């Protein structure tokens, strides 16, 4: 049924975590996502659901606390912003290697370095192309509304446990700081020990009983042949996720001659640009990847046979545009428009970029 509220995106992440039965949050404050831990501290879920909320001494500590909690089959999460996520990457690679489910939220800010606290989408490569070391992926969900901030917490955990993989919510200060109407989910109780046993009992370190082998959670394997087999297994899992879990939304693509491709807050801006373009009689549509990994490659390839060109709009110097180009594979012109370093493009300048693209065809 849910409950209608007016909330900030960051606040709703915290609310959704409590309501979906999260066992533990471990984090370290950083703008523009500090409201997540602030809301958790205000709500005091340890008094109601028993959820642990802990401000760790650093991001490195937080992500390793996730490793510990996830090893026990618990629903655990952290959140940070770009520089903090960079610090966590070693831990994320370990979590992926050890196949541990967890939820990580990155409210991206402008970089590189300490950069700025304003919104950015320049962590796309970091999120979808590894970031940390080794051949690994995380499932990356890119919400474009406060409602999706709520929905993707539950979905992120579900996918994480379904595939034993870290899930990551890739968002920014626009969606994090904005207030919109949201229907928050009903409270779900935290898993009992018996439920954890049923869900993760084949691998989690829930306490060895007499009649079973001990469970070892590790990302270390010194025999390279065995490590290759483990990698084969991981890759097979990633291919399965690529088949099953691609999510995207289309906006006025049916008769479109040109397409915007944009995710998260940029997709909201592009929707307005589509409205402005349509009012001028320009047939433009939008494809919005909801999962940025796995990427809607197949759909973009299909659309490349129907439209004359695609313009990737991102708050970065051009990162996701590489995935568009790979999908399009040279069939039609693909270009990029971006503002970055914390600057948000306006719907008007995005439309101008599209008009220029249409004229120049590149």
């Amino acid at each position, binding site marked *: 049924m849910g409950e209608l509220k*007016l909330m900030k995106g960051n606040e709703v992440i915290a609310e959704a975590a409590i309501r979906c039965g999260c066992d533990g949050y471990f984090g370290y404050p950083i703008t523009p996502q500090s409201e997540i831990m602030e809301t958790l501290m205000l709500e005091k879920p340890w008094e109601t659901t028993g959820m642990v909320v802990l401000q760790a001494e650093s991001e490195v500590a937080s992500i390793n606390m996730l490793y510990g909690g996830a090893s026990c089959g618990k629903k655990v999460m952290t959140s940070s912003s770009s520089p903090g996520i960079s610090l966590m990457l070693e831990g994320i690679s370990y979590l992926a290697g050890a196949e541990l489910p967890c939820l990580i939220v990155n409210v991206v800010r402008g970089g590189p370095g300490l950069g700025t*606290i304003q919104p950015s989408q320049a962590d796309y490569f970091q999120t979808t192309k590894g970031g940390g070391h080794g051949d690994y992926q995380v499932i990356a969900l890119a919400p474009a509304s406060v409602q999706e901030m709520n929905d993707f917490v539950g979905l992120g955990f579900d996918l994480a446990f379904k595939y034993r993989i870290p899930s990551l919510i890739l968002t920014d200060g626009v969606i994090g*700081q*904005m*207030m*919109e*109407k949201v229907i928050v989910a009903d409270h779900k109780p935290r898993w009992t020990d018996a439920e954890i046993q049923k869900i993760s009992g084949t691998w989690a370190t829930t306490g060895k009983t007499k009649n079973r082998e001990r469970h070892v959670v590790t990302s270390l394997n010194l025999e390279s042949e065995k490590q290759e087999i483990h990698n084969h297994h991981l890759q097979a899992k990633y291919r399965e996720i690529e088949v099953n879990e691609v999510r995207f939304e289309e906006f006025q693509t049916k008769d479109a001659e040109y397409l915007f491709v944009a995710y998260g807050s940029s997709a909201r801006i*592009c929707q307005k640009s589509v409205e402005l373009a349509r009012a001028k009689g320009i047939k433009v549509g939008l494809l919005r990847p909801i999962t940025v990994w796995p990427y809607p490659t197949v759909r973009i390839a299909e659309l490349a046979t129907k439209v004359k060109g695609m313009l990737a709009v991102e708050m970065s110097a051009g990162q996701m545009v590489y995935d568009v180009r790979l999908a399009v594979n040279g069939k039609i012109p693909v270009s990029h428009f971006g503002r970055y370093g914390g600057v948000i493009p306006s*719907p008007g300048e995005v439309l101008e970029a599209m008009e220029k693209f249409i004229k120049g065809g590149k």
Partner: protein
Amino acid sequence: MTEEIIIAGFGGQGVLSMGKILAYSGVMQNQEVTWMPSYGPEMRGGTANVTVIVSDERISSPIVHEYDTAIILNQQSMDKFEKTVKPGGILLFDPNGITHPPKRTDIKIYAIEGVEEATRMGNPKTFNMIVLGAYLKLKPVVKTENVEKGLRKSLPERHHKLIPMNIDAIKLGMEKVKEFSM
């Protein structure tokens, strides 16, 4: 109906909370709303602004480059946002502290002596509600009774006793707003 509004002024003037009350009021009458603050190292005395969109339809972008209405409460914001009002749109401002009044002729310009009226009411904190009242007189996007409901929803219960005073301030703003001419 879609109304795109920018409210801009000094931090501490109640710019963000004015936007919040407007957004809550929209929710109370089943409209779609977005409230997008300029966030960052803002502080009391610095500049602060918020974009509020109230609509009967799904809202595409919470960020826009031109506005139906600009509510401007200091000179820095006047310099930045006078030019962003759509032709035919509304600019509402408090002349207090404005050294360069608006000059555009393709928009409708109104003034509200918010600071002065709030001081006269004996409570400077009612300033933003007086300005909100002035705005609602010009653009009745939300009904006063829904503003009251919005206040009830957005204020912690211990502050509910202040609601009648806030409603009075809104009504005062509605009375005192006037067309501006050089």
